[in-house]
């Protein structure tokens, strides 16, 4: 499972992505717990509910179940155009 970071999320993680090989999270909720552990600064942004998640390049609701081959992305509100 690959987790990709965009925009200022990368300033917190200091990298573009993480790869989880074992014990991968089964839901977005579990993923958040996992990432809060790795990057405590993310916790306040999860609480504020401002970040968006995509699974395999599609926006998702939180109750979707995650698979080991998924590409997950975490990013702040967009500002294109």
């Amino acid at each position, binding site marked *: 499972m690959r987790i990709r970071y965009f925009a200022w999320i990368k300033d917190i993680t200091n990298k573009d992505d993480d790869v989880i090989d074992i014990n991968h999270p089964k839901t977005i909720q579990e993923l958040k717990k996992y990432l809060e552990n790795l990057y405590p600064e993310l916790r306040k942004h999860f609480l504020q509910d401002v970040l968006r998640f995509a699974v395999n*390049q599609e926006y998702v609701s939180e109750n979707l179940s995650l698979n080991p081959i998924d590409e997950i*992305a975490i990013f702040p*509100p*967009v*500002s*294109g*155009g």
Partner: protein
Amino acid sequence: MIKIQKKNFNLEEEIDKIKNKHSDIGAQTSFVGYVRDLNNNKDVKYLNLEVYEEMAFKELSKIENNALKKWSLIDTLIIHRYGKLNVNEKIVLVSCFSQHRKDSFNACEFIMDYLKKDAPFWKNEFYYKDDEWLENSK
């Protein structure tokens, strides 16, 4: 057609390329977004525009398909740039081609609204002393 690219583009050439494919086009509405010299009351030096490219293609295709379902369109073109963009540079082009003008106006505005809301691009705006990640208003 969707293009995500670093380099600048020429409006006449890009629009002409599509127009030349269809002699039944009577109307074309396009929107161009530019880097402004002033934002958040600060002088802008440049933008760094980040993209999640694979997802941007998917999202823009969805938006384009929704526009094609809602209006009678002959063709559409979206070009979105990324990377370092200076003040006055073009950021985005959305162009909608139809027989009659109302379809092209409505579709162009619709695509811009959803692009601003959902397409995974992020503007990191650099001022003379600091920088800021922008967020589009809802």
